[in-house]
Each structure stands twice: as C-alpha cells, then as structure tokens.
C-alpha cells in the first residue's frame, strides 16, 4: 500500500516517526509551513524555517525513503503580528524553488482584517507563481470561517480547482464540495476528524478530490492516521483502488498542479556507511538503523 500524507509537520517529529511512516507505506509527504507553538517575533525566524523545509527536512526524509515537499506561507495566526508580516515580501523568491508545491497554510484563525489581507495577498502570490494553495479552515467558528474563506477564494485570481480547503468536517464538507475546491480532512486522535467519521464522509460524499492527512505536529497527533484510514476503508468495503485513490492519486493530482512533484527518492551515497541522521547506527547491519552496504 502506497500512501501520501498531504499535510504533516515533520519538523516537529522524530526519526522514529519517519521509520514508522515508511513501514506503514508512506512514500511522500507535503509539509506546509505553520506556527511553531511558540510565536515567532521576526521574519528572519520564518526564513530559517523555510530554509529548513527546503534543506534539512527533505534530507532527513530521504534517509527513510520518503519524498518530502513543502508549502510555504505566512500562517493565519502569525498574520496578526505586525512584526511577522514583512515575511510576505520575502515569500516570492521562495515560491520559485523546486519542491515548493503550494502556497500554504493560509486561511483564517480568528477572522481578523489582518488575516483577510494576508489570505488575499497569498492567494494572489499562488496565482502568480502557478502554484495551488493549501487553505486552513479555522478551528473556532468553522462554518462561518469556511464561508468567508470561500468568498475570498472567489474574489481571488486562483480558480477553486487549485485550492485545497483543509480541516473540513461534517458541518463544512457540503459547502466546500459545492465550491469546486479540493477537500482536505485531518484525522486526529481527539479533535478534528477520526477514522470512522472519515470513512462515513467518503461513503456519503464520494472520493473525488478528497485528501486525507494526519496533520501531525508537536501537539497530540498521530503520523500514522493516513494508514489507519486506509485500513478502515478496506475493512468497511472500499477497494484497494479506492484507498489508493484517496491516499495516493488524489494528493499526487492536487500537488502535481505545481509541476514540481518529484516522487522518486534518492538517498545520499553516505547512507551505506552510516550517516548524519541515523546517528548511533551500529553500522554492521545488525541493529535497528543498520544498513547493510549491499542492500541500498
């Protein structure tokens, strides 16, 4: 089973998670930029983060056979801090980069005028850079937030079929689907969606343009939720092809709109002698991170 997690914050996860993701079948991820729990205070902090998403993180992922891409943006929450907003001036040069497959996460948090401005400006940047956009829908006052998001999308230069509305649920899926946008669902241990409700939504609304993600980050979350949804789909009578559509082909189609997806993973030559991520590897192939030289 091949899986693509279209929204996961690997920066916040460990190499154990990468190993578990690969063992579960995950071969590709998209890491959207978001806030770090601790608020940033300057654009420079964003730039180091963006550089990491275009440098160290794809390198780490490659060590575990996972193709890493990213989406870049000023996130909704920090769009409200005037100290952070100047990062919008730096975004255009980042949006040119290979492996940047979307603008995101953009959207609403508290639905403020500053968030209006940042969302509209970044949808315009997406249009100018021929990138799709990953749009976060708010956790509080979600339905009103989705409606306001859709208004901004309609006024933007970005057609709805290049927009992924994320963190949808039973109360927002219908209006989102009617808009022509792609539909994203985050499956969490406690909040957002769970596996059973996800499968029920797939049954009711179909598989077209639906993406399922773990949105795993530094909070209580589970990077293996994509696999768990796939397993429940099969248990509930969906076919292997159905699971492949939702958990591989749909994300490939959406992020493929960027023309920048590269799904083949190339490990560095160093991996057969041990490497800088798999620290402490026995190096003789016998232990957990050991890599027999002839096997890679």
């Amino acid at each position, binding site marked *: 089973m091949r899986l693509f997690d279209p929204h996961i914050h690997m920066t916040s996860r460990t190499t154990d998670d990468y*190993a578990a993701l*690969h*063992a579960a079948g995950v071969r590709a991820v998209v890491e959207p930029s978001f806030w770090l729990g601790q608020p940033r205070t300057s654009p420079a902090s964003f730039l180091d983060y963006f*550089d990491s998403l*275009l*440098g*160290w993180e*794809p*390198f780490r992922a*490659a060590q*575990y*056979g*996972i193709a890493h891409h990213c989406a870049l943006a000023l996130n909704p929450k920090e769009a409200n801090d005037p100290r952070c907003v100047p990062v919008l001036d730096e975004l*255009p*040069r980042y949006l*040119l*980069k*290979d*492996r940047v497959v979307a603008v995101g996460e953009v959207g609403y948090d508290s639905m403020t005028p500053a968030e209006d401005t940042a969302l509209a400006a970044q949808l315009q940047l997406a249009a100018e850079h021929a990138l799709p956009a990953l749009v976060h829908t708010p956790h509080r006052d979600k339905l009103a937030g989705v409606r306001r998001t859709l208004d901004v999308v309609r006024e933007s230069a970005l057609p709805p079929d290049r927009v992924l509305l994320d963190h949808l649920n039973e109360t927002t899926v219908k209006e989102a689907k009617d808009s022509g946008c792609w539909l994203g669902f985050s499956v969490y241990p406690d909040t957002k969606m769970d596996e059973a409700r996800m499968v029920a939504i797939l049954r009711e609304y179909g598989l077209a343009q639906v993406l399922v993600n773990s949105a795993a980050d530094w909070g209580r979350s589970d990077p293996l939720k994509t696999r768990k949804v796939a397993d429940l789909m099969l248990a509930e009578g969906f076919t292997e092809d159905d699971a492949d559509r939702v958990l591989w082909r749909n994300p490939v189609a959406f992020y493929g709109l960027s*023309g*920048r997806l*590269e799904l*083949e*993973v*190339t*490990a*560095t*030559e*160093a*991996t*057969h*002698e*041990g*490497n*800088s*991520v*798999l*620290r*402490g*590897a*026995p*190096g*003789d192939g016998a232990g*957990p*991170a*050991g*890599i*027999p*030289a002839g*096997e*890679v």
Partner: protein
Amino acid sequence: MTHPHVTQDTDTPTGRTDPAVASLDDLHAHLRTQLGATARAWLGQALDEAAAHPGIHGPVSVWELRLAEAGRRCGSAHADAARVLILHAARADAGALARVYFQGTAAERRAVLRALPHLVPGPDALPLVQDALRTNDTRLLAAAVGPYAARHLDPHQWRHAVLKCLFTGVPVDHVADLARRARGDGELARMLGDHAAERIAAGRPVPADLHRVLTLTDPTAGSPADTGTGTSGSDGKES
C-alpha cells in the same frame, strides 16, 4: 527494521561528469547528450539569458530564477551540472555566489559549492564552504570538500573536514587532493588514531576510509592504498 528501499545515489567523483571536477565544456557536452529535447532547449535559453544579463538585477535576476527552477526543468540527476553552467554563464563572482548560496535550497547550495573551483580564484568564497561544513547534510559535506576546499582551507579546518567525512559516512573519495594534503600530516594522523581508539573502545567498527587516510598521512606514502580492515560504519552523531 530494514532500511527503506531507495535509489542509491552513486554520486562519487567521476571526472568527466562531476560538476566540481569536470571541465565546463565536458559538463555541457555531457548534458547535451543526457537531457531530453525540452530540457535541452530550456537550458540553452537559460544560458543565453544568463550570458546576456549577468549580475544582480532587482529582487531576483533572471539567471537566479533559472537557477531555482533547474531541478524541475532538467531533473534532479542533472540539476547540479545545469546550475554550475548557469552560474558560469552569469559570470557569478564571490558576492553573487554568496547571495545565491544563502538564499538557496540545499540543492542550489550544493551546486554553488561545486561551481566554486570554476569561478572563484581566491579564498573569498571560503565562508560558503565553512557554512556547508557546519551542516549535517552529507550532500553538502561531500560538495564542500571539493577542489576549492583543497586549495583554500587552512590545515585545521581541512583536518576537521576530513574527520567529519569519516564521522558522517561521506566517502573520502569526495575529498579533493586528499593524498597531497594528507601526506606528512602528523596532526591528522593523531586525530585519526584517536577517533579509531574511541570507536574501538565503544565496540564499534573503524571505517575502512579511516585506515586509508591514515596510510596517506605517512610522509613516505606513495599511491593511495586501501588497507581497510574494518567494516563500514560510523555513528554519525554531530550535533
């Protein structure tokens, strides 16, 4: 767990195609035979544009744009070579190279490192090599220890670069001019001996490359010899 099945990048220096070692003419000829028609046309245009509009213009010069998109245009296997050629066509000096390095992705940074021996005659670009040597990205480390580092890194930094290669598993084949710089380097020999002792004390194998470099430090060393007896491996922790 077993290691993920991934395509092995056998990107070791190979003379005609390694972007740091090959002549620019050879690189160009190689790309012309390897790239498909669309990518070939794209590269030809990118090189013409870079040659016509070198230097820094506005927030993003046209050749900087081409540099950024070279991976998706030419494919990752040919991106380094394409980027080195674009940097050369744009006549990028140490200042321009520093700008694109520090504004670049890891892939762009690697290409800048590989372009250094072709484009920067003096030591002005050493800060880029030093930056790369501080990372734990083995792709950057391998590119950082090329001919430019061999020419300009001072002995202390060069020794630590060699040791870091051994530590992180970067094959020392990447270290340019290894035999010449290692010969008679008693301090390097001491560092290698101490590293070997630390690994033996921990019950870990000593990398074959360590024995190889140690042999090269002999003041009477001739041609490189592989006297490695240990199996591959290193703990690679460098944080």
